[in-house]
């Protein structure tokens, strides 16, 4: 893979060696028929890869993930231009449940566990598209990755800790046997230690279960540590992309787009203006 490339032809250059599992080609997304949010977003996720989608709050990361998973339509959003292909098949006209059956599951921002169901029942609902086959071994597989969930299996999901809820949301998605997991801000509101723990499990899942991951994060430092490739979004566009290490090492990128400097301090006037939203990046 090449280093950071300038805007226009970046998507072509970086596809590189691995075959693209997912490719998002120049999509435009409009909410409520008038609000233009994504203005030509393109990205690729290779088979078995971890790709980070970075950017400030409101950049369009969640919208991109929802366009892929089909959840956009429940929020009156629509992909009006471009195409999304998964294993070479167009999926941007599909319902969320068809997308899940194709092998893509989104873990939504804010976790969204079923609060009145127990932890185990939450996991079982994740197997809905599997029609009830192989649920026992699948449960054990999830408990293997998240032993804490096993301890909490009989608890109502609304009463377990934030970290456990995040694990549950990931475990629930895993029950659907995804080839690609869309993870939206798994670090949100969690202590750095816990974030580290969860990301390590995700990396193991990626290796051992061959689940590719598209990871939307404001916590760029952490995300780039686990991803091979990164895209940076700003204002509904992808403004650059490159190898994770290259992005992580490039002081200019960190300063201008990710609000980080080498030592993790805020600098320019924009950071002061957006103090609140930037603060979380540094955690």
């Amino acid at each position, binding site marked *: 893979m090449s280093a950071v490339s300038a805007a226009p032809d970046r998507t072509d250059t970086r596809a590189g060696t691995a075959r693209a599992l997912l490719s998002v080609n120049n999509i435009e997304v409009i909410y409520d028929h008038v609000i233009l949010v994504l203005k030509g977003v393109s990205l690729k996720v290779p088979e078995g890869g971890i790709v980070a989608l970075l950017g400030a709050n409101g950049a369009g990361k969640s919208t991109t993930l929802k366009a892929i998973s089909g959840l956009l339509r429940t929020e009156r959003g629509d992909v009006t231009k471009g195409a999304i292909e998964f294993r070479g098949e167009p999926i941007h006209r599909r319902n969320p449940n068809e997308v899940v059956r194709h092998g893509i599951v989104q873990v939504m921002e804010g976790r969204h566990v079923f*609060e009145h169901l127990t932890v185990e029942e939450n996991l079982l609902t994740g197997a809905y598209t599997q029609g009830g086959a192989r649920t026992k071994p699948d449960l054990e597989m999830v408990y293997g990755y998240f032993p804490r969930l096993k301890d909490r299996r009989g608890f109502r999901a609304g*009463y377990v800790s934030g970290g456990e809820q995040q694990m549950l949301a990931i475990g629930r998605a895993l029950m659907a046997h995804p080839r690609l997991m869309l993870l939206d801000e798994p670090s949100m509101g969690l202590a750095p230690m816990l974030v580290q723990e969860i990301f390590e499990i995700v990396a193991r899942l990626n290796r051992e279960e061959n689940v590719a991951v598209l990871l939307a994060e404001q916590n760029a430092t952490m995300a780039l540590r686990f991803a091979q490739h990164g895209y940076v979004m700003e204002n509904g566009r992808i403004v650059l992309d490159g190898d994770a290490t290259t992005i992580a090492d490039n002081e200019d990128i960190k300063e201008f787009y990710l609000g980080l400097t080498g030592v993790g301090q805020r600098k320019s006037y924009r950071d002061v203006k957006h103090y609140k939203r930037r603060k979380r990046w540094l955690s």
Partner: protein
Amino acid sequence: MSLLYAVFVAPFVDMATAPAFFVEVLLGGVFAGLMYSLVALGFVLIFKASGVFNFAQGVMVLFAALTLVGLMERGAPVPVALVLTVAVMVALAFAIERLVLRPLVNQEHIILFMATIGLNFFLEGFGEMLWGANVKRLDIGVPDESFQVAGVLVNKLELSAAITAALLVAVLAVFFQRTRIGRALRAVADDHEAALSIGIPLKTIWVIVWAVAGIVAIAAGVMWGAKSGVQFSLSLLALKALPVLILGGFESVPGAILGGLIIGVGEKLGEVYWGPLVGGAIENWFAYVLALAFLLFRPQGLFGEKIIERV
């Protein structure tokens, strides 16, 4: 002094001195209460899964009963007519999802509510058009007569209705707790976007809840119809379901059942033991006064689902 005695002492003395009669009144209350519970249950199922307050639930009871009687009048034996009625209610669920819910998805709740008002009038008219508007006798083969157990008169029809209702509730409970579809229904009720995100198809779920609500309506319609004839007033059962919902909480299945029983038993006991004091008709207003009291002092209802807030 004598008024206090008449209100607080005399009725209980009456109960104690004629225990068999008291039990009979109680059973009558349980029977009526179960009918209210069944109608309220239909409301709760639909409300939980789709957030729609289904104004037409009462008319669904009438429609189901009319369909059953109509089929029987045309010579279908009871079991065949029942199966066909179930099929009609399931077909109705599909039609409602396709023609009412799907076009209105993502609309305000009030719009969906108004759509169910439309549905109410449509079903009322459609039912009468198909099966006629006159009062019909519904004979399901269980005689409306009583037998004695330990000095208590028990009505066979009411007893079999109570058993059927209890079985239905038990089956529903198992369905919700233990099956894949039942879990999916509860998941949708909790967080429908999350349910979508793991591949639960909302449209299918809506068809299923409306079909289940339709089947519950059949049960209520058959029992009430067998007791007092199939007629327009059946749809007024829904008016009693509203106080039941206020008592039980709009999202609670156990609440709907217990709320119905409390109102059924309460109004029967009130009517028989306290009725003479106020010249009767307690049965007509008891439910609403009780509901009002609940609105004032416990608006979330008996079992109103607690909103989980983690600290």
